[in-house]
């Protein structure tokens, strides 16, 4: 079954390669996969690919850390406190209703086109899914388990640590997975505007010179990093939710 699931993509790749080799596909439109691999190798050995990759990963990580922390902190606050919910939830929901990429022109006016703008955009995209799922997770904790915690004599802090946070964790991790996807989307857009380094810069630069092989390469890199990020999120779920019947394989 695993073999079969890989059959279609591999066949597609081979057909693509053959069409390109036979000259049916112009290299200006779509270069052969082998050409893309050669380009990747050349750029990697010259060091520029790793530089750009590093710049992109750094932005993504910084933006994720900042946006994730803010979203998580606000989510905890609103999840636990009805007063905090009344005070800030509506504002957050209203800001969330704006597609965060629509705020891009304003962000550029505020922060220019430097690192701050890119990290801010990633953070903005990350904060909302983390916020919503943290709040939701806390609210969905089984009240019967909370009652049990009280019967067993748990104090507030212990109740949070032993019952509420573990109960909210599946939802929080779902938020992390959404946030990772949004982080990449934000990064792609941010890096196509006024970047001096990064995978997005590489793609824009290549467009100037009609280097479709480099453009296809950057698309492939975005895809691979997306897959890797999702893999990390899945591993986290398997490890942290080993007890959960829908994840992991406890015993």
């Amino acid at each position, binding site marked *: 079954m695993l073999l079969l699931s890989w059959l279609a993509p591999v066949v597609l790749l081979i057909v693509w390669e053959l069409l390109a080799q036979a000259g049916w596909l112009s290299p200006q439109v779509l270069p052969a996969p082998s050409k893309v691999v050669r380009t990747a190798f050349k750029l990697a050995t010259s060091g520029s690919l790793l530089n750009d990759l590093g710049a992109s990963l750094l932005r993504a990580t910084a933006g994720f850390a900042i946006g994730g922390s803010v979203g998580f902190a606000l989510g905890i606050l609103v999840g636990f406190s009805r007063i905090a919910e009344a005070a800030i939830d509506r504002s957050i929901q209203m800001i969330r209703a704006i597609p965060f990429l629509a705020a891009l022109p304003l962000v550029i006016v505020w922060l220019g086109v430097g690192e701050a703008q890119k990290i801010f955009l990633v953070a903005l995209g990350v904060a909302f899914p983390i916020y919503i799922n943290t709040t939701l997770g806390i609210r969905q904790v089984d009240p019967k388990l909370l009652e049990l*915690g009280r019967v067993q004599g748990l104090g507030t802090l212990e109740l949070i640590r032993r019952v509420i946070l573990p109960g909210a964790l599946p939802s929080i991790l779902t938020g992390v997975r959404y946030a990772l996807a949004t982080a990449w989307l934000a990064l792609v857009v941010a890096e196509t505007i006024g970047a001096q380094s990064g995978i997005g810069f590489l793609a824009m630069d290549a467009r100037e010179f009609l280097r479709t092989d480099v453009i296809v390469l950057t698309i492939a890199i975005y895809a691979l990093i997306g897959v890797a990020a999702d893999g990390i999120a899945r591993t986290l779920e398997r490890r942290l939710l080993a007890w959960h019947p829908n994840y992991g394989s406890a015993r």
Partner: protein
Amino acid sequence: MTLHAVPSPAAIAPAVAVTGLHRAYGSRVVIENLNLRIERGEFVVLLGESGCGKTTLLRALAGLDAIDGGRITAPRRPAVVFQEHRLLPWDSLWRNVSLGLNATDARQRAATALTEVGLGGRLDDWPRNLSGGQAQRVALARALVQEPELLLLDEPFAALDALTRIRMHDLVRELVAVHRPGVLLVTHDVDEAIALADRILVMREGRIAFEHRMKRNGAAPIARTDLLAELGVGTSHPIPA
């Protein structure tokens, strides 16, 4: 553990004493001027139809619901076993049993408690690998590991199959004989009451309407039909006891 001779009830503090308890939801009175005293080591079963106030009473004793009048005197926080096991699915069995236990030897004590309920080999197992009866045994271990002076059981066997329920009755009787907490078991199962109780109470419209002290050694136990009659069932067609 050896069983000591029980001092006369008046000499030691009761597991719980309730005087003039009153509870109402709006204008609807659920518990009215209720008095109850349970000695340590005494097994009291509270019978009653749905909505008679028996669960309200148990929750008041557990400190889970407020009371509108009267007094509840209990030496320490009681332990509770609910109808659902309420195990934390993200914690191993020993972590579940030792929940709220502030002791350095928590794991050791959880192990002892789990052994008592016949699950000594499964300290690190997950709740989801347990059957209904096993999960309820862990809940029982979690209650007893606190060494409570009052054990509150809220229909803990209602969701179990008939055979498992009988085994649980035996287990509970043994455990109570060893730990000797005062027990209040809330149920609507007459046979369960006869099997376990030292004293049977029937609650009706917020009051204790009937009380019967069981005589264990040889004396004739209460007839099932009498109890059912108190609950308003089968008065015209007596069932042989």
